[in-house]
């Protein structure tokens, strides 16, 4: 099984937990690696924006002497975006429904990001 297929399986598994509408694995430099996302969304732009959010948050926290952020969470009435690191090379980002249980999502995300980290080496 190719690396891409294995990464896509991680995203499928994540989606099967419910309340996750879309997800993507993105390189730290903002390029798309794998995605489970509607064709109406520009996946490449989503990848660049997610990496930028996390990158900017890392810079801000570092400037303030508060260490490296574990994740970035963006909430609106229409849903949530959560971006988290998945090792040195990548990050994992999900879009959820508005009523998604954030605690549960973070737990699933933590397991998935570890798998991604292991797969990318």
């Amino acid at each position, binding site marked *: 099984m190719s690396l891409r297929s294995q990464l896509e399986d991680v995203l499928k598994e994540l989606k099967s937990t419910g309340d996750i509408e879309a997800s993507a694995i993105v390189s730290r430099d*903002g390029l798309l690696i794998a995605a489970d996302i509607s064709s109406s969304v520009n996946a490449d*732009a989503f990848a660049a924006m997610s990496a*930028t959010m996390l*990158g900017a948050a890392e*810079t801000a926290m570092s400037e303030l002497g508060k260490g490296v952020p574990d994740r970035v969470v963006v909430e609106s009435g229409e849903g949530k975006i959560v971006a988290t690191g998945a090792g040195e090379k990548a990050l994992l980002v999900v879009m959820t429904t508005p009523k998604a249980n954030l605690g549960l999502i973070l737990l699933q995300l933590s397991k998935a990001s570890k798998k991604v980290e292991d797969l990318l080496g």
Partner: protein
Amino acid sequence: MFELLVSEDLRELSEEELDRAFVTHENGVKQFLGRIPLGCIYATFLAGIYIELEKIVGRAAKGLIVNASRNRGKIAGSAIRRRYEKKYGEMDDERARMVARNMVTIWGRCFGWGKMSFESKDGVFEVLVEDSLEAVGYRKLKEKPGHPVCWMLLGYMWGLLEGLFDRKFEGEEVECSALGSKNCRFEFRMI
């Protein structure tokens, strides 16, 4: 001008001939294809912007520049394709390949983006650039990046190919002279 771009192999033309063919002067402003204003920038200009952007968003700076450039390249490629098809009928892959090669020739020789060559085989396109504007900028600034740095060129060529061929590509800068390679080398693959 447009006819020349889509019908002739421009590699044999000198810099002066290319300038005469594609660059006009109007009210003191240089224009490409008679409609797009041109201006020179310092080689260090883009490199300086990238360095500052990396200070703000880290490695994600690459994704921002590559994606933005890719989108604009795609708009340019699609516009050329549409203009061609309106005038001459469907643009086949052979024609798209020739136009892409001509655009690379113009960027290198008219615009000064570096000495560029373009080859294609079995759906893989390779562009070699000697003294790419972005890599030269890093060298002039005496910056030693840990990654290839020709983000504008990568994104714009990538998008141009997608627009011209009306297909998705994968793209990567596999060697960069800012990292010590002789040339910058880009690979693009049809998906």
